């Protein structure tokens, strides 16, 4: 047994060798190459995710609470993995592609948006979307069918519970986040901010709480916005415009209307017709249908602007409305003759300015500008008018409403084109480009005692069933004195008595001014197609009561339209609705 000793020694040597080899390998891997393996591990295990912010929802006001305008709906996109299905067909529960197709057609039917030939055509493709915006019930049926190689992922889409109501105002965003209306203009506020999650994950990409690489920036959900737009008023105005256009037998190309509260600047309705369904906006071929013309499409509003001219002169102490001038039906400014509108021939003679406004005589408002200039249309008269219109009433500049809007244009007297002829035209609302919103906001200050409020469509935010009201903004500036404003209200009520006043609900005070504008066709004014407008207010029949609402209507004609004939009935219908809706006491 003497050789047993060294044989044991060999085993011990083997053991020692194993220990040395293992310890040195551990040392190399764990100490020397530690950094390398940490990098390798992080590249494999640390994942970065975007935490999606929930897009804010949009609500109408409705007098008492809120009415949903734009909501999020969970939907699903169904996709197939042709590569997987073709490769594994027949094994472990994978059906053949024909069978898969048959089942999907059975469940999805019309919702399938692809050609099956394209789906199976490319064997390498691993992801083909076959239906989008699939509802829960249908997607549950797909889940039930347990088709391997068919996937579904949750997405969200915007739905408009009120249908087309306020379509141009609400708007939409496309896949790139570019859009129109509230959706487009308030996109940033509605989107919120996506968060970020950097985390160590397990092999199935499920985040783990261990490790020191984890960073989480939570998503900030978008604001749920409550609009000042009143669902009831908006719905009603939409309906009125629709009936007006469809009932005109093609005479009216398009109609727009605006209702706002003159003492706050809150917009209650912004309506346009023809309209579209924002849930399926891509079905429209003409992009003009998306435009909220109330704020985005300037036009020459014509005579509805005359009250501005009168108010300037009265406020400057240059006009006594009861003073008279001689109306010959035409007045000459520089080398141009300015005529009154058709159908006013009977008004020739000496006439008070008050009456000139009632009959909407262009000569009267040109005469008023002359009065401002002390007898002629001087530069100082033009500057005075420009300062009032542009700087005080805010015409020809953005109102600052929380929507996309156009600037419009008023030419300054400093400009060569801002000559006497142009300014004579501007006294009756031609020769300048204004949006309805600008005109209505300026007009609100004209009849509310002279306070200009910036128009707004945002009433606040909506969280947990409660409205968090936005701060009520005070007037930004004084436009005219309260006395001038009171005088203007009186004059406009007189105008109303000549223009459909008999149709007002009894016991209220309603004022209005109409306008009929020739339109530009290929750079030349044509009187074959006109735009008809009406701009007015209504309120209680008390001297101390300010008007409660301002309504502006614009009709674009395919033929000759008249403010007094075509726009007034629309105004009346909306105005009477408002008188009732605001629950005012008739007197």
């Amino acid at each position: 047994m003497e050789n047993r000793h060294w044989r044991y020694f060999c085993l011990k040597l083997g053991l020692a060798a194993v220990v040395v080899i293992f310890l040195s390998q551990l040392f190399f891997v764990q100490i020397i190459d530690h950094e390398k393996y940490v990098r390798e591990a992080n590249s494999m295990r640390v994942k970065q995710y975007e935490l999606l912010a929930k897009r804010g929802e949009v609500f109408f006001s409705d007098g008492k609470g809120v009415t949903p305008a734009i909501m999020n709906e969970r939907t699903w996109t169904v996709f197939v993995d042709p590569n997987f299905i073709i490769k594994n067909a027949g094994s472990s529960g994978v059906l053949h592609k024909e069978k898969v197709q048959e089942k999907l057609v059975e469940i999805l039917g019309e919702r399938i948006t692809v050609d099956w030939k394209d789906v199976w055509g490319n064997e390498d493709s691993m992801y083909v979307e076959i239906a989008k915006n699939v509802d829960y019930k249908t997607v549950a049926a797909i889940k039930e069918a347990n088709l391997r190689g068919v996937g579904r992922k949750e997405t969200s889409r915007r739905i408009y519970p009120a249908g087309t109501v306020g379509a141009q105002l609400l708007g939409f965003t496309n896949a790139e986040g570019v859009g129109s209306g509230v959706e487009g203009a308030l996109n940033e506020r509605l989107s919120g901010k996506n968060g970020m999650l950097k985390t160590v994950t397990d092999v199935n990409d499920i985040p783990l709480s261990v490790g020191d690489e984890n960073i989480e920036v939570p998503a900030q959900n978008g604001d749920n916005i409550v609009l000042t737009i009143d669902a009831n008023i908006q719905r009603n105005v939409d309906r009125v415009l629709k009936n007006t256009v469809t009932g005109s037998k093609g005479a009216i190309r398009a109609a727009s209307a605006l209702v706002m509260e003159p003492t706050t600047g809150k917009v209650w309705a912004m309506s346009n017709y023809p309209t579209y369904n924002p849930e399926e906006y891509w079905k429209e071929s003409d992009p003009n249908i998306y435009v909220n013309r109330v704020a985005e499409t300037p036009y020459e509003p014509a005579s509805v602007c005359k009250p501005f001219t009168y108010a300037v002169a009265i406020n400057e102490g240059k006009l006594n409305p009861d003073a008279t001038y001689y109306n010959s039906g035409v007045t000459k400014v520089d080398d141009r003759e300015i005529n009154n509108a058709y159908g006013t021939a009977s008004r020739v003679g000496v006439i008070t300015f008050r009456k000139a406004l009632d009959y909407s005589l262009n000569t009267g408002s040109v005469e008023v500008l002359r009065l401002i200039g002390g007898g002629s249309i001087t530069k100082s008269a033009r500057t005075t008018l420009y300062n009032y219109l542009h700087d005080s009433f805010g015409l020809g500049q953005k109102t600052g409403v929380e929507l996309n809007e156009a600037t419009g244009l008023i030419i300054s007297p400093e400009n060569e084109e801002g000559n006497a002829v142009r300014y004579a035209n501007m006294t009756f609302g031609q020769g300048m480009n204004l949006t309805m919103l600008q005109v209505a906001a300026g007009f609100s200050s004209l009849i509310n005692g002279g306070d200009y409020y910036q128009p707004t469509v945002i009433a606040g935010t909506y969280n947990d069933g409660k409205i968090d009201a936005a701060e009520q903004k005070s007037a930004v500036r004084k436009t005219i004195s309260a006395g001038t404003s009171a005088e203007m209200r009186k004059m406009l009520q007189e105008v109303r008595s000549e223009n459909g006043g008999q149709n007002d609900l009894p016991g209220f005070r309603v004022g209005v001014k109409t306008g009929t504008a020739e339109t530009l066709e290929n750079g030349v004014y044509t009187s074959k197609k006109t735009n008809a407008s009406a701009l007015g207010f209504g309120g209680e029949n008390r001297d101390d009561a300010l008007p409660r609402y301002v309504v502006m209507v614009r009709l674009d004609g395919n033929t000759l339209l008249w403010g007094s004939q075509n726009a007034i009935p629309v105004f009346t219908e909306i105005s009477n609705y408002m008188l009732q809706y605001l629950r005012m006491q008739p007197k």
Partner: protein
Amino acid sequence: MRKHRSDKAIALMTVILMAVSLVIVYAIGGRVAQAENAATGKHYSDTYFFFHHVAAIGMSIAALIAGYKIKYEFLAKHAKKMFWFAAVLCLLVTILGRMNVGLVTCDEGACRAFYIPIISIGFAPVELMKISIALYGSYLIRSRRESGELGTKSFWVPYATMFALTAILVGAFQKDLGSTVVIAMMMFCMAWVGGIPLKQFGVALGIFVVIGAFLIMTAEHRVQRLTGWESGDNYHVENSLISFGTGGLMGVGLGNSIQSSGYLPESLTDSIFSIIGETWGFIGAGLIVICLAVLLFRIIRVAERTEAQDSSLLCVSVFAWIISHVIMNIGGMLGIIPMKGITLPFLSYGGTSMMFAAFAVGMVIQISGWTKRTNINEDSSSRRGQRGTRYAGSSRRS
């Protein structure tokens, strides 16, 4: 000879390793369960693995005590029967696996263990095979040496038959190269220490290499395992190395293991040493290596100091058993040799492997009470330094 105190260090190391394994299984069991559930749709609870492991360790300690208490002579007497019984069970596992009757667990076509559903315990007959070969192999060498037949036909025929049967039943039928290598190691070490002439030993080694090469070539998954290792494109090894590497010097700390969340395959069983490396770093993994080394060293010391040759060789075979598991497991996990899919004794989760290894160590502890080195309380003078002289060649047990 009188019995004296057994080697407490062996028991201590075994219990330390088991305790470490329990802590690791507790720490990662939940994460492994979640990853497993997500990947396979099973429904393991977070504590499933831990409680099963507690039970397995309880049974292993019972097995260790049994190995210590059950008279070694009794077991040695029935070693031959035990071997045949194990061989029949090995065959049965293969047949039942092929017939697909259920009572057998198969993994990628390799059926290695019975599964008793009611108590949800698996049993791999190859473990019984290891015990019986340790017992019968050591008996065979001792008895042939006594009769002077060591190295003759009457030794080689039964010895080689035993191995050939193992190679066929375990290596070929169960496709278990790892266990075949373990048994080969046990038999080689016993033959080596048992005093087989060097020339014969060399020939046997040569034959073994040829058979081994044949087995590797005939089983596709083993070829893949080899080529996979050679090309460095082995997911398992890569993730094992990432475990060790990210552990660094001190480790990521208990409960912070990320690799166990599904990246590292077999985190609880074969790869548990990698998780130890990740959790406690170089310090922890190094201490475990040292723990295992102490255990192995103490076993071989018992072998060396035991006069009775069969008990001594039994210790040698247990040494070979454990060290071959350690070499193949840790060597594989560290990327030194190809992965074998073999457990790490006393550390890997559950199963019969730990119970049988514990039983074997229990037998070594029993034998350690009969060494001549430490019986200094005998009234004879100290026998320090007299190893291998006074009782040399004796097979007598008192």
